[in-house]
Structures are given as structure tokens and as C-alpha cells.
């Protein structure tokens, strides 16, 4: 299992537990849109970012708290991975 897949899996687990407890786990795919579809609002996004920063020891910038970086579990994992890389920035 690659690092990316591991992060995607963990992120999905967190999302299901924290925000989608009544949801069938199968309905949340790697490419499910969360921010642009309105499932995650600003409060949820802040919580998610706090969780990512704490869990993966990364720091996200304000402009990364958007659908451009965190819309789907796959994008979230990609952003985290980029941030984990030495000198990784979000653009």
C-alpha cells in the first residue's frame, strides 16, 4: 500500500466518523466531492485541517483551505503528501 493510499484510507475513516456517521462507507469514494458539493462547510473544513495538521504534522496555508486543494479524499491526500515533502508548498 502506497503512502497516498494509506492517507486516503485514513482520511476517509476520519470523514466518515466525524462528519458522515450515518453514511454507508461504500458511498464515500476517493473522488467524492465534499467541499464544492457543500457536504463540508467552513466549520468542517477547519476541523479537517486541524486534524490533518495534528495527524500528519503538516501546516496548511489559508488559501489551501478550499475546493482547489481539499475537495475529495484523493485531493486531500495529495495536498498532505505535498506538504510533507521537504520544502513542499501548496502553490
Amino acid at each position, binding site marked *: 500500500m502506497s503512502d497516498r493510499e494509506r492517507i486516503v484510507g485514513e482520511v476517509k475513516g476520519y470523514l466518515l466518523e*466525524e*462528519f*458522515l*456517521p*450515518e*453514511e454507508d462507507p461504500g*458511498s*464515500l469514494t476517493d473522488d*467524492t466531492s465534499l467541499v464544492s458539493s457543500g*457536504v*463540508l*462547510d*467552513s*466549520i*468542517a473544513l*477547519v*476541523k479537517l485541517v*486541524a486534524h490533518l495538521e495534528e495527524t500528519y504534522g503538516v501546516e*496548511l*496555508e*489559508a*488559501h489551501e*483551505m*478550499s475546493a*482547489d486543494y481539499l475537495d475529495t479524499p484523493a485531493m486531500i491526500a495529495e495536498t498532505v503528501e505535498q506538504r510533507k515533502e521537504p520544502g513542499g508548498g*501548496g*502553490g
Partner: protein
Amino acid sequence: MLTLQLGVVLLLIRSYRIEQDFGLLQLLPVVFAGFVVHTWAPPRARLPLFLGVSLAAFVVILSPLQAMALVGLGLGLIAICHLPVSFGTRVGLLLLAGAGLAAIRAELVLLPWKTIPTLVLPVLGALFMFRLIVYMYDLRHEKQPATVWQRLSYFFLLPNVCFLLFPVVDYKTFRRSYYDSDATAIYRKGIHWMFRGVVHLLMYRLVYHHLVIPPHAVGDLADVVRYTTSFWLLYMRISGQFHMAIGMLCLFGFNLPETNHLYYLTSSFTDLWRRTNIYWKDFMQKVFYYPMYTRLKGLGTMVAVLLATAAIFLVTWLLHSYQWFWLRGDFPLRTIDAAFWGFIGFGVVVSVWLEMRRGKSRRLGRPAFSLARATSRSFKTLAMFATMSILWSFWSSSSVREWLDVFSRAAAGPPRQLVLLVLATLALAALGVGAQYAESAGWPKWMPRLSLARARVPAAVAALGLLVVAQPGVQGRLWGPVGAVAASFGHIGPNEADEERETLGYYEDLLDTQQEARPGYDRPEDWVTLEETDAVLKTNDLPGVELLPDYVGSFKRKTLRTNRWGLRDREYDREKPAGTYRVAVLGGSHAMGSGVENEEIFENLIEAELNRLRALAPFDSVEFLNFSMAGFSVLQSMHVLDTKAVEFQPDMVLCVIHVNEDIMVRRALRAAVGQGRDLGYQWLEDIVALSGARSGMSTTKLEQRIEPYLLEVMEGAMRAIAETSRRRGIVPVALYVPLTREDIERSATRRESILRMAGRAGLIPLSVHEAYVGHPPSALMVAEWDAHPSALAHRLIADQAVSVILGARSSLGFADMETVSIPDNADKEPNR
């Protein structure tokens, strides 16, 4: 087919003259032609073409020179954003440029081109005041550079020229959404949203004309509910304009998201914040909330979130004043605005705190129906609607005291009103539960999630129906209530409350020093009220004021000169000369001649003309003595007649009245009672005692108490004038004069009612309401900011008054006088 649909929507806008004051009707041909050409243009040419359409719109709505100034200033600002210097330096330069423009807007720096601060800068402000902030923010993190056409199009958006309160379009979204799906679907969405905008704006008119009531007319619980809900419902105008603006942009391929989403159905403050003016929420979130959160997160997630949330409401309050500044030229920091945003902010902070603590379950798809959850949501939605109605009415009130006074009336009225309110609430909650069940069951198919494709047929039917109803002659054939609703859709004038407010401000504020200057009138600083001049002496009697004798000064840039008796007139002896027919003129600002010279006042012109014609022979001459004063109504006129005018032995009393005489009486009595002055008439004291009005009460409360007795007081004053006159052998006449902006067809019912009242009271009613026919209001007003009659208007009144007076000579007792050659219409019976 799309062109036809757009044509129908534009025709609807034209038929109902939607937002014509903003120039929307002039924009329609540009939009239509631009859309047709744009859809046929090759994709590469579309953005430049859109920019061309926007610039054409600026030229059409402004003027070529103003449009050039606008574009030149705009290009200058965009150029600063791209200077080859550091980001911080560019921001500093933009701030400097903004400060320079602000100095021009505030008219601290005067330019030779007077339209720059008042016409060009508001549009420039609408285009740049927020978009520059978003642009610079995104420029810093831009991954893929935009083309010059994308950048220019972002700033020069064509709907902005009409809709200055334009939603804050996000730069990234603007770029990302450009033709991001099927072009036909985007165009269709644009047409649909424009139609939705039309519907919102027509609904707004319905509310504005049928639901809104002035604060003093609030009498019981039902009125309080009506008063408060009407304010929140008026928000439909904003959402209507936003739908129209974004719909227009969709026609040119910008597939922008919704600006407002079912905002009357929000169930919490956070829900409200997310669904009302969504673009603003996104702007605040992106530029202020997340950056603030990231800076504060060291304090802990909860603290950082709550502080950032509270801060954005502080910023929202300040930015509303900032927006006001660019659009209106001043920077109001009103306590009532701070309190409003403070309440909303507090509500959102509490909601966020609860959500952070308890968590909130979300669903990827449609949630399963739960009766408990649906019931809770229904009641929360109703509570939120009530809360917003109350807050919005608070925000719209002129003072906290006025607002509290309105609410104090909720206890009045029969108990069945409370029962009805509870039953209506329960019925609405049940309806809400039913709607949620229908939504979860996906039944009926078209209702809960009205897709664009499914909505096409009902929307087309509704559009065509509205178009038919807009045609002349159709409304009159409709069944009563339906006809009334249809008529409201087409009604573009002020409603009763605003018309009344306009009239109040239209008169000098002589009697109530607490009255604030009305917004919307850009009066020069030297254009003061009569009370603000040194021509007025305060008294403790019913009128409360009188003109100083032998005064010479300036009033509204004209000479105000009084004679030794304190009349704005030439000198007359107290003793009436032998062979003279004397007329005492009573009235307010019209008769006093606010804004014109002494010699231009209609009573002087009538006097001169009757003397020239020797119309009242065998009398040698006619004298018109002007006892009027700005702000006076029949109530003060009654007092002036008794205490002053009778001493001059008039043969006739000419009491000048107008369509809003009742409003002037209300003001006069409110001020006299409020200031505890001596009313001087027992019958008036008795009515006031009966009404419960007394000094120390707020303006609204005083008016509420007086309102039921208003017409009784007005007729009483007229009767007193008639009785005093008859006792002394004076002919009592009421002369109705039109207001310069009066629509005499619309005011016919009110006018006839006032003249009938004058007749009942014993005055001889005459009217010159047609004096201004054929003349535009702009020529009749003394200034664009002051609707008092100009010299021309006085001349027109005088001409018609001479005809009417001589035409009514039998009623006035001149029948046995010599016949003279008189102007047209003079042989008519009294023009009532």
C-alpha cells in the same frame, strides 16, 4: 429557441419596467444583441467580444466621456496590480490610489468634471472596491496565469453598470466556471435565472405595495407581524437583482454559482450565513476568515474559529460602510448597523460553538425522512424567519425607540389574533414537515428539486402569463384580487409609507428639531430649513413658530423679506383702505413661496392680475395678505386666522391646502403635543386627551395615538376657520394646489376626499390641481433636491387660480360685481 426565450424574458423586464431607475431597460438591447452575436462568434473571440459588450453598456448607461473616464481609471488600477515591484509595494500603491479616489469621491478634492465623483466613481467603486481585494489575493497564489481578456473581463462586468450592489464575484470561480460545461445549458441557466430575478422583483413589488406599513399605522399584533415580516421579505429585491446580474453573465459563458439559495427557509444562523448572499460569505471566508483562523490557531481550534467568526461580522459591518461610501459618498458608522451585525454575529458564533461541540451529521445524498427531525427543522425554520424579520425591521428603523414603540403595540388587539398566530405557526410547521417528507420521497417529481430542464415548461407558462397580464387593458378584465395583484406588479411608484415619508421631508422641518435629514437628497449645505435661518421666532402656542417682522435675509438662495406684521409680503396697513377687497391667504410652504422670491409667489401674482383686470369692481383694488408659513397646515392656519388675520378685516380667507394636508396636520399636532405647547382650543384639547397622546412620548407613539383622530382634527380645524369667517362676514375658501410631483390621476380619490371635507366643514372648495398639466416636474421644482414650486409653477398656479376664482364668483359673492373679461375656464363652476 434560446434567443426566443431570452426575448420573452427581456420583454417581461421591459413590460414591467423592472429596475428602470437603474437603467436596466437601456441595457436590454445591448444584452440581447451581445448575446446573439456572442453565441455565433468563434470561441477565441468570445472574451474580447464580452468585454466589448460591457464597454458598450457603459457608454449606453453613462456617456462616452464618463465611460472613458471609468475605463481609464479602471485600467490604471489593474496596471498597478501588475507593476514589476514587490507584492507589498503594489498593495501600498493600490491603497494610495484608493485614498486619492476616496478624496475625490468625498469631494475633498474638487475636479473640474463634476460627474466624476457622483456618477463615475460609484460605478468604479462597484467594479473594483471588493474585486481588487479578491484579485490581489488570488494573484499571489495564481498557478496558471490568466489571459489579459480574462483579467479585463473580470473587472468590467456589464451588469455592474446597472446593479451597483453587485455580488462579490470570486476571481478563481470566475475563471474556472467559464464554459465549464455545455454552452447551451449555461445559456439556459442564465435565462432561467434572469426570469427568476424578474419573479423576485415582481414579488418584491407586491410586498412593497401591499404589506409594508408605516410605523405609526401599526395598531395591534397582526400589524406588528405584518410590519416585521414585510421588511425581511423586501430582501427579495436584492436577490432579484443578483439573479438578474448573474443570469446575464451566464449568457456570455460564465457559469457562476447561485447567489442566494432558499434563504427564507434557513433553520439556523450558520445556515442563514451560508445561504443568503453566498458570494459575500465566500469572499469573507476566503479573504478574512481562513487567514484569520490560520493566524489564531495557536490558541486552539475552538478559540480560533470563534474569534475568526466574530471578527468577520465586525469586518462585514465596516465593509458595508465602505461600500456605502463608494456608492453614496459618506461613511456612516451607525449604532443601529453595529447592533444588527452584532446580533447576527452573536447568533452565528453561538451556532458555531454548538456545532463545534456537538458535531453535525452530514449526508452525501438525500437524507432519510424522520418525523422528529422534520418537525424540529420546521419549527427552527419558522423561528429563524421570525428572528430575521425582527432583526431586519430593527435594522430598517430610524431609531431604537421607534422600533420598540412598534413592538409595544403587539399587546393590543383582540386575543383571537394571538390564537390565529399560533394556529398559523402550527399550520406552517405541518406544511414544512409535509414538504420535507415529499422531498425525501422524491414526490411530486417536479417539486423539491426543481431541475432546470423540468422547470422549463412551468417557467415558460408563467413568463407568457405575466407577459399577457402586463398588456394594457388586461388587468382591468381580471377578477378583483387577481387584477389588484397584477396591477401591483406593474406599479413602480413609491408605496403609501414612502410617499408619506417623502412628503414629510419635502416640507421644512419647522416643528420637530429631532427629524433627521433624509437620505437620497444631495442638498447643498446652504440649503437649510426655514427653522435653521434667523427669520423664525419660537412661540409656545399651537403653531410654535412665527416669522420675525421686518426681516430681510436669504432663504434657499432667494431673498426672504417680511413686513412689519411678520408676513412674507409687501407692506399693508392694518386698517383696510376704503374701496379695497382684502384676502387673507393661509397655508404652508407653497403659499409662503419656499424657494422663490417674494414677488414670484402666486398670491402676489393673483393680486396683480385681479387688479389689472379690475375684476372685483366696484372695489378699487384687491389686496392679498400672505399669512402663510412653511410647515403650516389647516391646524396652524386656524390659529393664525383667529389671532392675527381677523385684525386685518379680510373679506375672504383663502386657505391653501394640498393632497397631504392630513400628514401636515399629524405633524403639527404631534409636535405641539410632544413639546407640551398650549393648544388653545378646548375641542382640540379634548380630542388629544381622548387619544392618550401626551408630551414625553416618542414620535411614533404620538403618531399612533393621534392617527385615529386625525381626520376629525383636520375637519375640526377647517370647520373652525369656516365658522370664524362666517361670524365676521368673511368668505371662507379652500384652494387645493397640486404638489409638483403629484400624479393628479392617482391622487384623485384623496383630493376629492379632502375637498369634500372642506365643503362639509363650510369652506368653499376650489381646486387648481390641473395647473401643472403638460409641464415636467423638473421644470416645476425649485431644485432637483427640493420639490417646492418654482417661479414657473407659481405662475401656473396663479393663472389657473384667477380663472377658478372668477369662475366661481357667484359662489364667492362677486356675482353682483361688474362683469369683466376673464381668462379661459373662468365661467366654470367651482372646480372641485
